[in-house]
Structures are given as structure tokens and as C-alpha cells.
């Protein structure tokens, strides 16, 4: 299961993802990202500190979120992935496109 809490400040949305981001829950994340974009805050930061497990479908949701955010003139950044999440990121080479930031502040800094 997954819990997603999002807070927006100007055009930046921070989504805290707690639990397991998998094929069963990926569509929830997609919905939250979509809402952030339609609400006019398309710079999305996904905080993965409390995400204990992610599979490729979960990563797929991040990538399609990235694309939609960029289409809307924003971007998507990920923060503080756990060891398991980092492993999957590097297994798929996705860390070359979605480079993890250490914390939310660091992710926000360059925007």
C-alpha cells in the first residue's frame, strides 16, 4: 500500500510517498502528479525517503510523470531514495535521467 501527501508552494509540489510504489499503486502516484500539473504547480518533487519498495512499474509512473511535468513547463525530481529504490534505479540506468537529490531543500534549490 502507499500513502501520498502532497503540498504545493507557488509552482512547486512536494509529494511524500510512504509505503510501496508498485504495479498495484503506480496509478495513485500518476493521479497525484496529474493533479499537481492541473493545479498549476508542475515542478514536482517526489520524496522517496519513506518508500520502502519500488518496482519497474512504479519507476514507469515516475517517468511518465516526468514527461507530463515537462510538457507543462515543469520538471520532476526525486529525493532520498532508500537502498532498494537506488538499486532498481541503477539496474535500469534510470538514475542517469532521474538523478536523486539528497533532500527536498537540495531539490528545490536550483529551481
Amino acid at each position, binding site marked *: 500500500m502507499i500513502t501520498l501527501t502532497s503540498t504545493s508552494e507557488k509552482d512547486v509540489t512536494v509529494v511524500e510517498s510512504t509505503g510501496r510504489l508498485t*504495479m498495484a499503486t503506480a*496509478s495513485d502516484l500518476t493521479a497525484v502528479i496529474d493533479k499537481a500539473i492541473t493545479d498549476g504547480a508542475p515542478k514536482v518533487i517526489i520524496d522517496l525517503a519513506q518508500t520502502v519498495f519500488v518496482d519497474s*512499474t512504479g519507476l*514507469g509512473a515516475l517517468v511518465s510523470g516526468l*514527461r507530463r511535468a515537462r510538457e507543462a513547463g515543469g520538471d520532476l525530481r526525486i529525493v532520498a531514495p532508500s537502498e532498494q529504490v537506488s538499486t532498481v534505479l541503477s*539496474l*535500469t*540506468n534510470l538514475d*542517469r*535521467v532521474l538523478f536523486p537529490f539528497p533532500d527536498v531543500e537540495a531539490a528545490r534549490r536550483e529551481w
Partner: protein
Amino acid sequence: MRILAIRTLVVVSLALGLVYLVWRWGWSLNLHYWWIAIPLVLAETYSLIDSGLFGMAMWRAKERPTPPAPPRDWTVDVFITTYNEGAALVGKTARAAVDIAYPHRTYILDDGNRDEMRALAAELGIEYLTRTTDWDNRPRHAKAGNLNNALFQTSGEFLLILDADQVPHAEILDHVLGYFHDETMALVQTPQWFHNVPPGDPLGSQAPLFFGPIQQGKDGWNAAFFCGTNALVRREALMQLGLREYVREQTEAVRQALDAAQSVLRSAIRTSRRRGGALSPVLNELSFAAIDAKNELRLGVPLAEVTGKFQRAAETARHTVLRQDLESMQSDLAALDLNVQLDAVALSALADREWSPLAALKTVTSLIEAINAERLHEALPIMPVATQSVTEDMATCMQLHASGWKTAYHDEILAEGLAPEDLGTATNQRLRWCQGTMQVFFRRNPLFMRGLSIPQRLMYFNTMWSYLAGFAAIVYLTAPFLYLVAGILPVKAWGYTFVEFFLPYFLANQLLFVVVGWGRPTWRAQQYSLAMFPVWIKGCWSAFRNVYFGRKLDFIVTPKERPTGAQPYPWRLVMWQAVAVATLLIGSVIGAGRLITESGGTLFGTIVNWIWVTYDVVVIGIIFTAARYRPTQEAP
């Protein structure tokens, strides 16, 4: 025991083949007629390599034991892909899919967006999926696109993929899911079998040699092929593939942008030198930064870091130039449309322009910025099922193997489908397979694909190699004709020497086929591999033109409406085979005439070539039976 017999025969037939070919190359080339002698010996070498690869597959033919039963809580999606098949046909498959014993969800993947399919799904209480609006005005990628579209709207751990006509047995999931206890197992393929094929199989639809010994042989080297339908796939494996491809393409986009930047800079440096050269050191430095960036890409540095660093270098360069040179040439910029896809043409256009330093730097900056834009010309950022070939199954499977996944072949018929019922449709189908396979060969040659083991490379290469049979066939058909009509002898040998070398090799080879295909009819497949020679040539040639020159793939025109009652004989489909047979028969008669009038040819030589002609005609003859074939009843 059987495997021992097969291995012995493989060794014997390859050894005899090797002896024969050494003799052919070293001692029997008639170089007086080199223009046919060389092609013939090349064709024979081709055939021996083909046998070698076949023997290699058979060496480890794997008969898998029944896998353990699956747990009851795995989630499975059953996908029925359809484009234009009727509701009766899809309905039959869908009903059988609903009745599959293991818990699952059934989906109709309707690429035709049809109301009758929606109604059918509603009636059966199953899910209906069609393309999302993301696909509007974007490449649809046929069946691969249809599957990818569904992947992002479903969530089962495993996917059973069925073509619209493939009616599954209720036990299919129970028998096959167990293989996935192995967490590195990505895919299990089961046979394709057709229930509407008459005895004798005139169209050569059943593939008992492929769905049997050949797949088992490939399986032995962990290279069992995915054949697009009747297969169970692990979603995680497909998605990982999609993600890797996505990253690969993004990286490629950055590399191309850096290439473009370099060529702009080179041309600006040339311009600058002509005008005194004060600014070329700055531009030079940025060129080096581009080279560094490309090296970093190769080393796997994150893309944002690579582009960010290069971007800053470009910014610094721009400030330096601004200070030194304030006259800018805005006109350079106006003409440039950065939304164009960067290809060879666009690149050379960039390189040919005359650039002022400032305009060049501005352009370089914009080029790098443009890659942050996503691949918006595609419907989905991630395409797990490969889209670069018309045989999406083979390309996908190869990438699965290259990223370390396993596949298995399960040799039990668990779904029954409909085969083409006329030669036109059958020919077109073979043409597509040939084209798709050769597309993969030209785009992503398995011999050089990183991640594949050597045997895996050879197993993929084997399939591609076998499609070159059409070119060898031309030689095999021409050589006996030349001897019979003009006494042209490509083989220089005395008396029975040829027979002594050739016959043991030929017989051992045939015996191997008999043992490998024990109890399975394999002769039909052998016939079609020669009889379809015009199709193989056309397939290879059009795939070549498609990959290297961007031409559309040719296809064979078949009548859309099948006329009722008497149908004309489809001469056009068998034209080349008819020419070949007629030529050979005329040649045989001329040969007889030459022998009687003693104007050329020896009795021995003529007899050998008559046997050869007979073999060719008997093998090719199947195509004329196939052309005459009409189904006796409507397909159920």
C-alpha cells in the same frame, strides 16, 4: 538415448560436410567457369553453416520437466489482441479465456476501437481496452503499440498474450505459471498449433519442427524465442526493458545534440579563422568541452550533470565572446528551426552554414536545451514491447536475453488457432516474418549485441541466416540448368568422386532431420524453405532498403474479398517458381537431346543433374499444390 543419437549424427554429418567442403574448395573448383563455380561453392558453404547452427541448437535440446504448481495468489492478466477480426472469432477466444482455471482478469485489446467489441466484452463481463488519446496523431506501432497501451492500464504480475484466434485451454496458466518460481524467468512460450489445417498441410502452416526440437534446442542455450502469442510474460521484466530503452534513447538524444553542437562549433571556428581568428581559442575550448561531455556520457554520468556542465561552459564562452565581439549576426539564428529532429540531413545543414561566433554559441545552447524536451512524437515515454521491427516479439525477446533474463519453451499445445487458408495470406505472413527478422538483423545485429552470451548470439543469428536461403536457392536452381543446356560444369571431378564425397554428407544430414523430427512431419518445412525462395529474397531486400534507405516495406497484394465459387489459379504468387520449374524441365529435355546427339554432356553428368533437377522440382512442387488449395468449409 535420443540426445546421444542426435549428437552422434550432428558430429558425423558436420564432419562429412566439412570434408566435402574442403574437397570442394580445395580440389574441385572449376575456375574455368568461375562465375558459377564460386557462387555454387558459396551456396554450399552457406548450407553447411546453416547445418552447423542447426546442429548446435540440437546439441542441447531441452525437454523440460513439469514445473512446480504455482501459488494461488499471483495476479495474471489475459490479453486478447485484435485489430479487425470479427466478433464471432474473438468471442470464441474470449469465452475460452474466461474459462481458464487459474484466477485471472481477461482483457480484449481492441486496436480497432469497435462498438461490437465493447459489446462483446460487456456481455462476457470482461475488460475492454482501446488506445488512449495519447496515441492520436502519433505512430501506433501496430501490435507492439496495442500491448504497450494495455500495459499502462493494467496491473497483473504476469501477462498471457493471445492473438484473437488463439483459443486457450483451461489449464494453460496452471501448467505454465510454475516456471516463474524462478525469479529470473521473464517469459514462457508455448506452441502455436492450428486446428483448421487439413491432413498433409499444403500451406505448411504447422511448424512442428520449430515448435518442438528447434525451440527446445534454443531453450537449451537459454534462447527460447518469444513468438508473439501463446506466451506468458513477467510484467516486471518487460517494464525494466522499457525503462532501459528509455534511458538509452534519452542518452542517444544528448549524444546527438552534442554532435550537432560540435559541428556548429567546427564551422564557426573555420569562419572565425578566415576573419582573423581572434575568437577561435574560445570556440576551441568549447569543442573540447563537448568531447569531454561525450566521454562522460559513455561512462554513465547522469545526463543532467553532463548537459549542465556543458551548458555552463557554453555560457562562459558566450560571456567571453560578448566582451570581445559585440557585432552579432542575428540572421544566422532566424533561419534555424530547432524543433526539427536531428538527423544526418539537419546535421550537415548546420555544418554548412557560416556562423558568427555568437550565433554559434547561442545555437549550441539551444541545442542542448532542446533535449530536455521529451520524445513527444511518441505516445508513451516507455515502450516495453520493442517497436523498431514488424516482428516485435523477436526484438523484445533479444533485449530480454541481453539484460540477463531467462526464457523457457513449454512443449505442450495449450492454445489452438487458425492458420491462413490460402497461399496469398500464407505468403504474406512469411514475408512479414522474414522482413521483421531481417530488420532486427540490420538494426541490432545479435552477433554484436552486448549482454548476449555467444550461444545466444548464434541462436538468433541462426534464424536470420536461414532467411538468406533464397539467394542460395537461385544458385541451386541455376547450376543444373547450365550443365544440361551448355555442359557448363562448376564442379571439376572425375567419375564417382563427387558422389563419394557428397552422398554420405547428404544422407547423414537427412538422417539427422529424421531423428530430430521423430514422429513429426518435417518434410513440409524443408520444402517451403526452398519453395518460398522469391519471398525470402524479397523479404531480405525490402528489409535492407527499409533500414538503410528508409523505404517502406513491400508487401504482396492479395485480394481483399475472397470470391465465392470457382477462383482463378493465383499464377502471380507462384510466377517465379513456375519459371524455375519450366526452365529446369526444358533444360532436362535439352540435356537428353545433347546426350543422344552426342553434342555434349556425359551420361554420368547428365544423370546426376537429372536427379538434382528432380529433387528441385519435387521440393518446389508443393507451392503449386498450395496455390490450388481451397478450404473445404468455412472456418468455425
